[in-house]
């Protein structure tokens, strides 16, 4: 009896203490904000982010920002959504640029127009700081929802030694699909039926595969998706059929590309080890190639069949919906600081992404860096022909609808035409609920 009563008393005391601790101390101090950030490429980014936020806190006594590492791009989306559901959204998130539309459809984003207006600038002036190619993934229905933070485009990487060996001039890289096919044939080495050196490698794993399909389709004159409306994709079209047929031909007709779906790391390893003489990969891998290739290499634009065009990749800074006014203000200060020319350039040099803020390229540090690493310039130059990254209602499943079929083609299990018809059908099915609410909701 006594024992249990004492226990009860003890429990009651613990309870009150916990209660007292739980009540937040209302003290005047800096506004505390959380920044969710993913590390999509390698571990060094986390340290760089720590440095960046430390500098921000030292120069902004009114705000105390905390960088919270949240895993991959996908994990970051999950954690942000979980935090929004729990009623404690982070003040700012570095979000994969093609997730913005889906989040906006789900009412999970703060419209940044009012904040821009409060600063006394117009939307056009604000967006004017960034490369035009990046606007598409930041603006939805003419409102700004994201601020570009770090971005990429796909590039053609060439092993210069192998090219010279095959009698090709690496300073004049292939510009069309015809030239690229020719190069790849000359760069493929065989011993009987066995290939000892592949002409070209193009990655295909979930995420990368869709991006490469968009790259090839755009170079073939296509669009992949409707940039103005999230309920349509153009999979079963001549431009995509040409793109997939060419990829299929590289494998089964010209035999210059490994059969099957090859993930990104396998492609870069293959290139570094000399097993593949050329590859198409993101600018995000440039630092990795620069640090690891033991041979001279050359980067070039993605060759065209109809026109030069590539999608962008990378991430934007966003603010989740449902933030208190003071947090919103603090987060806006942080976002503007992180995307300023100086910080944007610093982050670009640290990570290998290109800096979205155009003024970053006129800072003395950046001019010096580009002088030392001219290959970093190619990605920036290619931005002139870059277009937005596909973003639809339920971007990931709609992308997978295509990727699953492309993988079957690359494995020789389906022909391009029937695969694309199947992908279109599956994607239309995934997009159905959104169309039911928008394009097919009639008066």
């Amino acid at each position, binding site marked *: *009896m006594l*024992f*249990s009563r004492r*226990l*009860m008393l003890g*429990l009651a005391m613990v309870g009150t203490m916990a209660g007292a601790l739980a009540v937040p101390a209302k003290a005047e101090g800096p506004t505390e904000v959380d920044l969710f950030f993913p590390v999509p490429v390698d571990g060094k980014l986390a340290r760089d982010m720590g440095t960046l936020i430390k500098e921000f806190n030292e120069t902004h006594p009114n705000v105390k920002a905390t960088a919270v590492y949240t895993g991959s791009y*996908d994990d970051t*989306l*999950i954690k942000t*959504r979980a935090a929004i559901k729990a009623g404690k959204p982070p003040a700012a998130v570095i979000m994969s640029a093609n997730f913005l539309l*889906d989040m906006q*459809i*789900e*009412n999970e984003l703060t419209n940044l127009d009012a904040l821009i207006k409060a600063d006394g600038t117009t939307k056009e002036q604000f967006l004017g700081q960034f490369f035009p190619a990046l606007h598409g993934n930041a603006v939805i229905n003419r409102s700004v929802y994201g601020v570009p933070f770090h971005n990429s485009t796909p590039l053609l990487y060439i092993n210069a030694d192998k090219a010279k060996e095959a009698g090709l001039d690496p300073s004049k890289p292939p510009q069309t699909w015809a030239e690229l096919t020719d190069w790849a044939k000359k760069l493929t080495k065989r011993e009987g*039926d*066995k290939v000892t050196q*592949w002409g070209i490698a193009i990655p*295909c*794993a*979930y995420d990368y595969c869709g991006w490469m399909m968009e790259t090839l389709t755009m170079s073939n004159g296509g669009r992949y998706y409707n940039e103005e409306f999230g309920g349509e994709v153009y999979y079963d079209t001549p431009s995509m059929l040409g793109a997939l047929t060419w990829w299929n031909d590289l494998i089964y007709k010209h035999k210059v590309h*490994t*059969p*099957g*779906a*090859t*993930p990104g*790391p*396998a492609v870069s*390893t*293959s290139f570094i*080890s000399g*097993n593949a003489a050329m590859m198409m990969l993101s600018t995000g891998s440039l630092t990795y190639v620069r640090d690891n290739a033991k041979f001279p290499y050359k980067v070039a634009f993605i060759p065209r069949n109809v026109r030069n065009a590539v999608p962008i990749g990378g991430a934007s800074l966003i603010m989740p919906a449902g933030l208190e006014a003071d947090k919103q203000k603090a987060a806006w200060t942080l976002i503007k600081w992180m995307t300023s020319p100086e910080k944007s350039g610093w982050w670009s040099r640290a990570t290998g992404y290109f800096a979205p803020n155009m003024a970053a390229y006129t800072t003395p540090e950046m001019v010096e860096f580009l002088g030392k690493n001219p290959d970093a310039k190619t990605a920036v130059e290619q931005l002139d022909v870059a277009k937005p990254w596909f973003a639809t*209602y*339920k971007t*990931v*499943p709609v992308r*997978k609808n295509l*990727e*699953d*079929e492309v*993988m*079957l083609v*690359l*494995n020789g*299990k389906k022909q391009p035409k029937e695969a694309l018809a199947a992908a279109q059908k599956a994607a239309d099915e*995934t997009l159905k*609920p*959104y169309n*039911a*609410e928008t394009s097919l909701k009639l008066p």
Partner: protein
Amino acid sequence: MSLAEPAALPVATSAAPRLHLLKRFTSRFKASLPAYLLLLPSLVFLALFTYGAMGRVLIDALYQRATPKAPVRFVGFENISAVLADPAFAGAVVNNLIYAVGTAVPSIALALLFALALARTHAVNSALRAALFLPVLIPMVAASALFLFIFLPNVGLLDYYIGRLLPVLPNWLGDPDIALYAIMVITIWKNAGYYMLFFLAGLQAVPEDVMEAAHLDGAGPYRRLRHIILPELKPTFLFVTVIATLNAVTQVDHVFVMTQGGPSNSTNLVLFYIYQQAVEHYDIGKASAATLLTLAALMALTALSFRTMASREGGP
């Protein structure tokens, strides 16, 4: 009067024992109160993080949105029937069955073999046991990252050695016909050493005198294995089978790291399907329904196996 009397009787007779029962119950409760209080902390946490979550899944499985902007509405069993009608779910179940059988049987067979070979304790065997147990100590995610490079087409460790023998090098993780088996090899490599521990423990329980008697009676190694060791190991077999089956459903780290369910859904297992529904499709209703189905199947399986185990242990 004659009507009231029989009606009053049962009340009078039953009231006393009922009171008595209540008293006994309260006194018993009072006696065990400290025990309940001591259990309380873990009960609170179980309720918060296990039963609470399960309850939430149960509720979520009953609701669905028709369109993105529409409010969630009660749909009853519609989510469950939608999951059952989804070819991707059926595919994941089939993959998971192949995966469960294809990993449980070889890893248990290997574990038994290792345990029999290393049953006697001496320096060499201890070292070998440690070597075989090593994969268990490596986190699945780390192991998957390592195997990602072993399986690299053309340049990976595997192709480097096997490549000389095969005319065409397989794309281990990129070919939908091979990828699931590549994943299974890792699971077997990782789990065989763990199951070996259970068999080693089981072998300690084989009575020494029975073995000696069999030896004296002239039973050879095969007959001793077939008629003495294996029957004695039956409970171990059952236990390991349950663990292996549960692992086949709950351990999908390597799918996340290596294939993401691809290529073309060929390595999509049930747990990964649930992840896809919840995260990629943002369809909490369907994800919860799939979770419920999986949970029900696992619970039924576990209950069945442990009941068989209990009845066998209780038997002669």
